[in-house]
């Protein structure tokens, strides 16, 4: 967890005057995970409402952001759970959406070699300071096939374990790893061509 954002540290309180700042931050978090502007706004709204209602109980053990993000995570997981009920990830016929399946085929030749060898990304950490890098990163997550992206954000952004994801989405561990792998191949390819090789 990052250190507290305010210099006041533990004495930070839920400040209703900063609500727009909180909202902007939470929206960014929700949007990348839900890929649906309306659903993201709903989740943020519910989060802020819940925060208002229990604001006095916020004991300042963590930063307000961390606390709000924790509430939002639950809202997002609820949403993803509902979504996977409506649109199951594992179909009886074993089929998946084509966009997902194509990633591995596009990445590797029939004999299992990289069609284009992954490059050495020079000093990649420097990019964290670059706003343009984050726009490309965001775009690359957005263009990921939807099912793969759902796994990716749960694993890498929300930091859930694969066990938790399997349970939430009612899917086998093997399938979960396959989807995560496709998501990573997709993101890697996108970052390399749209950012590191430009």
């Amino acid at each position, binding site marked *: 967890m*990052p250190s507290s*954002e305010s210099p006041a540290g533990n004495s930070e309180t839920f400040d209703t005057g900063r609500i727009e700042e909180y909202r902007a931050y939470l929206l*960014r*978090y929700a949007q*990348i995970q839900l890929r649906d502007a309306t659903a993201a706004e709903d989740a943020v709204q519910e989060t802020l409402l819940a925060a208002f209602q229990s604001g006095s109980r916020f004991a300042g053990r963590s930063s307000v952001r961390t606390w709000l*993000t924790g509430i939002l995570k639950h809202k997002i997981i609820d949403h993803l759970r509902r979504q996977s009920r409506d649109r199951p990830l594992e179909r009886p016929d074993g089929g998946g959406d084509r966009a997902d399946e194509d990633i*591995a085929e596009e*990445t*590797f030749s029939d*004999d*299992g*070699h*990289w069609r284009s*060898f*992954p*490059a*050495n*990304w020079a000093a*990649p*950490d420097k*990019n*964290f300071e670059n706003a343009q890098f*984050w726009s490309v*990163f*965001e775009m690359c997550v957005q263009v990921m096939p939807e099912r793969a992206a759902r796994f*990716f*954000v749960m*694993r*890498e*952004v929300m*930091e859930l*374990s*694969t066990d938790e994801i399997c349970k939430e989405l009612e899917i086998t561990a093997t399938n979960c*790893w396959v989807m*995560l*792998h496709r998501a*990573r*191949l997709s*993101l*890697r390819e996108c*970052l*390399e061509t749209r950012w590191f090789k430009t």
Partner: protein
Amino acid sequence: MPRNEMVQDVKLIPTCRETSEVLSRAQDRPLTLREKVVLMVHLPLCNGCRNFRKQLAFIRDAARKYIRRE
């Protein structure tokens, strides 16, 4: 690409595709002995897969920073 051919000629050596799957799984759970052997055999021969391993670590780091950056 001679390195490429070398990997191709020896059937005992796991493919890049298989190796990439193992590298990806290593992000999510401890590897089995068999999986560890795949990496031990393949990685010294393949610059592409070594780069992929570094890229996976970077992607994880970036995903977490994406949310937390100011």
